[in-house]
Structure formats: structure tokens, C-alpha cells
């Protein structure tokens, strides 16, 4: 999906553009996106862009243009490690990394989350931890003079229930369970 209409030489038709996409981003707190003048400092600073087809400048450009589906379905959107270098260096003071988080939130709601991320969220929802304890590590904790079960949601079942109630109120569990778009 990432080799887009922009490089195929085909015509981008106005009816394919969802110009309200930028409004969606602005509404979620990304108002500075409009300041972008496409200099490419972000792309030049990006460690993911050095080794993948992820191009931050292009992501912003396509979003401004309204290529919503193309932006949201591009797997490269998930290669940003949130190192914040683009955001620090942007000459227009745009909070680029925050924009990427906003666009990812819209992608997740629109059914474009990665399957592996859903698996990770399963651990979080079930245990309160993205990386839960195992028997071996519990044993090692004991050997080191620490409580075998750490004093987190792992030890306190009522705390885990509280955590899970918040997740359910925010319908975060539904987001993690929803079917992906093909």
C-alpha cells in the first residue's frame, strides 16, 4: 500500500481525497500539522526511514492532502520508534512524533492495528503488564532477596480488577479485540 498514487504516475482524483482527514487530526490535538512546508528534516532524521519505506515528510504530506486510507493502511506507520528526533529538529516547531501518535490512534480505531500488537495488548489487559512475570523470573527474584511476586497488579488482585475496570470503561479491550480491515 505504501507505493502510492504519488509514485505510480496515476492521477489523484479529487473524489478520492478525504480532505476532512486533516480536520480529524487537528481535532485530536494535531493543529500544528498545517505548519508543515515539506522540508524533509523529519525524514532525514529518522532511524526507521533509513531502513524502511517509512518517510515522515510523506506521511505528513499525504495526510494534508487527504489520502486517508493510504496513510492509515500503510504498515510503515508502525515502524516509528518514537525517538522524537524529527520533533526536536523540525524547523517549524511541529510536534511530529505526537502527530504520528494521533494518526496511529485513528488507524487503530479504523481497524488497522497489527496482529502482533493485539497479542501484546492481550497480556496487558489480562495481567496489568505488557511483559508479565513468569515462574523462572519469580524464582530469580526470590534468589535476589526480592519478593517473588512483585508488589504490582501481579500481587494485588483487587488492583488488577481496578485496572481492568478502567480498561473496560474506556472500551480499550474492544479496540484490542476488533477485526482488522482486509
Amino acid at each position, binding site marked *: 500500500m505504501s507505493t502510492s498514487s504519488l509514485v505510480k504516475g496515476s492521477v489523484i482524483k479529487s473524489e478520492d481525497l478525504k480532505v476532512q482527514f486533516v480536520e480529524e487530526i487537528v481535532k485530536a490535538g494535531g493543529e500544528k500539522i498545517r505548519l508543515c512546508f515539506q522540508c524533509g528534516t523529519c525524514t532525514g532524521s529518522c532511524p526507521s526511514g533509513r531502513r524502511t519505506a517509512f518517510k515522515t515528510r510523506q506521511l505528513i504530506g499525504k495526510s494534508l492532502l487527504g489520502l486517508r486510507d493510504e496513510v492509515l493502511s500503510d504498515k510503515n506507520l508502525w515502524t516509528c520508534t*518514537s525517538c522524537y528526533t524529527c520533533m*526536536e529538529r523540525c524547523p517549524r516547531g511541529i510536534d511530529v512524533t505526537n502527530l504520528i501518535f494521533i494518526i496511529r490512534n485513528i488507524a487503530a480505531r479504523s481497524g488497522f492495528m497489527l496482529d502482533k500488537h493485539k*497479542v501484546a495488548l492481550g497480556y496487558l489487559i489480562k495481567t496489568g503488564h*505488557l511483559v508479565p512475570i513468569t515462574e523462572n*523470573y519469580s524464582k530469580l527474584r526470590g534468589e535476589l532477596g526480592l519478593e517473588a511476586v512483585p508488589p*504490582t497488579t501481579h500481587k494485588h488482585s483487587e488492583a488488577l480488577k481496578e485496572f481492568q475496570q478502567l*480498561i473496560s*470503561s*474506556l472500551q480499550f479491550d474492544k479496540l484490542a479485540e476488533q477485526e482488522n480491515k482486509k
Partner: protein
Amino acid sequence: MSDYALFLGCVIPNRYPGIEAAMKKIAPSLGIALYEMEGASCCPAPGVTKSFDSQTWLTLAARNLCIAEALGKNVLTMCNGCYASLKEANVILKNDPKKREAVNRVLAEVGKSFRGSIDVKHVIEVLYNEVGLEKVKSVAKKPLKLKAAVHYGCHILKPSELREWKSYERPTFLDELITALGLQSVDYQDKLMCCGAGGGVRSGIPEVGLDMTREKLTHITHTAADVIVNCCPLCHLQFDRGQVEIEQNQGEKFKVPVLHYLQLLGISAGLSLDQVGAKAHNISLETLASKI
């Protein structure tokens, strides 16, 4: 004594508990009293939570902050990711009444409320700015004659508007902290580059993250460093376990031991490699044994 609520997170207590053990053993000699945050959860991780729903991220972070508020102590983290989530959430909730209200409406269901009464600190920040290099030096019993490749990790430095370091492009605080223990900090290409694990990349598209790790390891190996020193358990895991994964995937062997700064400080204060959790390491710390 300065009091802190110790935030454990996930990777430290559940994968590298030696970091937690070192922290707890050396805290008294640094003048730090630690209090457990009973019932705390994942921070939650910025990459694999904030990426999907920022409201959930903010609310779950607020719940953790409430636990520290109930203790009446500032939060101490040993992880760049926990620091990023909790510090940023704390600033947002303190300064944005609308967002605070929305979060508190949900927190009310579990009898909690964010008040904005505490701050969030990274242990490295506390060691450098509050404890001070001289006191850190005084804790060290034996100078460690090792060549170290320092890896800061992104989120202790950035976003810089929420950090108090002099420079995010050329920081020196972690280098100064290891030099205080007798180590030599070696310079290497792309020293400040990301380890590759953050932003949900390790869990979502691991091959991309590992390619970054491999590039950093290549540069580090050129310096003949004895050890990689970090201050973030996710970077730590990415370098330690990542070396095994890179070998499995590409056959490239690096074998550079990896230590969190707290483990290094523990060793220099007289703890054994086992006491700082050597068993949990994928890349053996044995090569260090003869040098320390």
C-alpha cells in the same frame, strides 16, 4: 534522606530483577528511602498503548500516579519508557483542566482522583542532579577499569521541552556518571541513535528494530568496548536479548555484555555479578568478571 515512591514497571521486575535488587541495596547509601507502589501496573508503555488510544494511556498512567500521590512521595523510575509515560501524563494532567476532568471522571469509578501533588523523576536525573557525582563516587568501593559504550535511550532526553538537560543532541550526564565509577566512555558512531525497541516496534515489527540494534552493535564493536551501559530496561533487553535474536536470524555474533547503570553502580559498590542478576542476562557477564 530523600523519599521516593519506586515505580517498578514491567521489564525490570519481570525480566531483569537484578536492576531492582541493585537499586534497593544501594539506595540507603545514596541517602534515598524507597517506598513500594503497591498495586501499580504497566506505566503504560507509550508505544504499545498511547499509539492505540491516548485516552486509555493517560487514564492508566493517572492511576499509577494516584498510588504515589496516596504515599505523598515523588515517583522514581528506573526506565526511560516509564519516565516518558508518567512524566508526560503528569504534566498534561497538571496543566490541562479539561483532560484532568475527563480522566478523573473515569478514575472516580475506582475511587481514585488525580490531584497533581507530586513529580516524576528518573533515577539518573536524581543521581546526577540531586545525589551528585561526588556522593556517587563515594559509594563506589573499587574503580571499574572498563571501556563502556554508553547508550542513553531516547526518552530520557526527549521531548526536550519536558526535560531539564543542557543538550539532547550532545548530552554528557550518563558519561560523567560512568566516569565517576572509573570507567572510560568510548565514543562511537551514531551514539545517540535509538536502540530500535521503542514505539511498539519491538513487539510489532521486530525485524526493523533489530536492524537498528545491529547497526549500533556494529559501531560499538569497532570501539572494542567491554560493556554497553544503559539506563532503560527496554533498551537493555533490546541489546541483551537482541544479540541472541540477531545471531539466530543472521548468524552475526557480537557478544557484548549489557548493564543498566544501577547494576554497574551496584557492582562498583561491592555487589557480585550474581547479586545484580547476572543469571537473567542472555549475553553472559562472565567476560567482565576477570576485569572487575
